[in-house]
């Protein structure tokens, strides 16, 4: 492929793209910068961009005042727990659909996707009342159950698209060579399925971590994950830009890093392999 572009054009493109990229990233950058300012400097006008007195006191304050760690743990347990539960339920199903498809397989897949179309608000009231009556309101198990169910269609779809790419002939060949079913699963299938399962896990942890409708409506304090904790800053007495920024930075940093690592899978996963 011959390079048809001049160096000058490449330089121009670089400048434009970097400007646009930094503009889109700016709110995140600004949040991180503000988290290292004192409250006075955080609201100073004109705003100080880099030349301010760097401090980490906001981070210490956030934890000492509000038990940030407890909310972090809630987020971690809920997003990991619901993703693992969804995987356990979805792996056999996706496996069956990929390797033993029937005439109805496609309909089943489409139906599963269609359950995602149901607006959560259509289910909010019953779920809220059931949870209230069974004591699941504001508990981690309650949120794990709900997030598992809302993740399930996406997890099944993603796994299905990954599994479908494993050629069935390899399995047949292994069977011909006299591999037992157990050996076939352990030595042939699993190694080929692991990358797909890992990508699914990663993406769904990200989605569950950021899920806000159910976490905001089904928790108050005990099981509140970071989404709900951060929302509590919208009350007037919580308005401290430095602390708000520190809490926000800590809430988004792990997922941002995870997301950057999984950006390639993100495309395949979220589009069910329709875009490659």
């Amino acid at each position, binding site marked *: 492929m011959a390079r048809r572009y001049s160096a000058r054009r*490449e330089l121009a*493109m670089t400048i*434009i*793209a970097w400007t*646009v*990229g*930094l503009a*889109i*990233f700016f*709110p995140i950058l*600004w*949040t991180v910068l503000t988290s290292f300012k004192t409250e006075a400097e955080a609201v100073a*006008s004109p705003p100080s961009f880099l030349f301010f007195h760097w401090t980490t006191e906001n981070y210490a304050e956030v934890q000492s005042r509000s038990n940030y760690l407890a909310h972090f743990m809630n987020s971690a347990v809920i997003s990991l727990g619901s993703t693992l539960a969804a995987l356990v*339920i979805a792996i*056999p*199903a996706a*496996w*069956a*659909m990929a*390797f*033993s498809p029937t005439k109805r397989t496609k309909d*089943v897949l*489409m139906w599963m*996707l269609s359950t*995602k*179309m*149901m*607006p959560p608000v*259509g*289910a*909010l*009231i*019953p779920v*809220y*009342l059931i949870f209230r009556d069974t004591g699941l309101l504001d508990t981690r198990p309650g949120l794990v159950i709900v997030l598992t*169910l809302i993740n*399930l269609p996406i997890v099944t779809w993603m796994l299905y698209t990954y599994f479908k790419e494993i050629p069935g002939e390899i399995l047949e060949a292994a069977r011909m060579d006299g591999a037992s079913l157990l050996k076939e699963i352990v030595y042939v299938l699993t190694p080929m399925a692991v990358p797909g399962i890992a990508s699914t896990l990663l993406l769904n942890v990200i989605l569950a971590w*950021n899920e*806000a*409708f159910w976490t*905001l*409506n089904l928790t108050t304090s005990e099981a509140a994950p*970071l*989404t709900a904790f*951060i929302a509590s*800053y*919208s009350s007037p007495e919580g308005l401290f*830009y430095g602390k*708000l*920024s520190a809490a926000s930075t800590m*809430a*988004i940093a792990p*997922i*941002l890093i*995870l997301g*950057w690592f999984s950006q390639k899978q*993100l495309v395949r996963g*979220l589009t069910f*392999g*329709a875009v490659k």
Partner: protein
Amino acid sequence: MATLHTRSAARLMMAPSVLLLLAWMIIPLAMTIYFSFLRYNLLMPGTEEFAGLANYQYFLTDPAFFTALANTLLIVGGVLLITVIGGIALALLLDQPMYGQGIVRILVIAPFFVMPTVSALVWKNMFMNPVNGLFAWIAGSFGLQPIDWLASVPLLSIIIIIAWQWLPFSTLILLTALQSLNEEQKEAAEMDGAGAISTFIYIVLPHMARAITVVVLIQTIFLLSVFAEILVTTNGGPGVQSTNLTFLVYTQALLQFDIGGASAGGIVAVVLANIVAVFLIRLIGKNLEA
């Protein structure tokens, strides 16, 4: 090679997944439908009684409903418009040869991973705040009157915030599609004398059609039920200016404890989503033919 044996095994393996989703779909929906026909307020327990279509009548004739319906569609439409057009532009830009392409890509996709409550709060306080916000400072340094974004143009402000969150997604998907375009095809078109614009219209755009479909489908699912961004920024206000259907039902149920009315609203939201879904499922069903 599917024998009778493997087929029943397959059915068994699918059972938990199918049954759970079936339950998740049917039980809450059936209960919502049932509640929607009751006069049912959590503050007055024991007074539930059959109300016929009164809840629907109340909900559908409430002026707030029409505002919420319009707002729901404006949010979906507005954000889709910004993210699809912006996504195409950004994908074309990022596809050009440049220095540090990988880093720019990382900068551009970052907002997608920011949780909605964080992005809402950050935009609300640090950018759109009429006193301390950066936008106010920028306006002020040009000698302009700062805009009180969330008070004077609440819906637009919310659309901007949500579009910022979703632009990375469409950019990433469209860029991936763009990079799978055969370079030779473009070169051939150029040899035949096609300009940049006609190459884009006749070759690049059709190639991206499927990716655009996917972007529209997935975003619509999420945008129809936007909630956190509204709760954190405007709380639906001023008045109901930035209330969407999801938020309207939420206020009815969990703030006014009117379970009957809220359930009727929930069913209306489900019907609306299904109308949209019928079109979308057909579209993607065609496009996903693997």
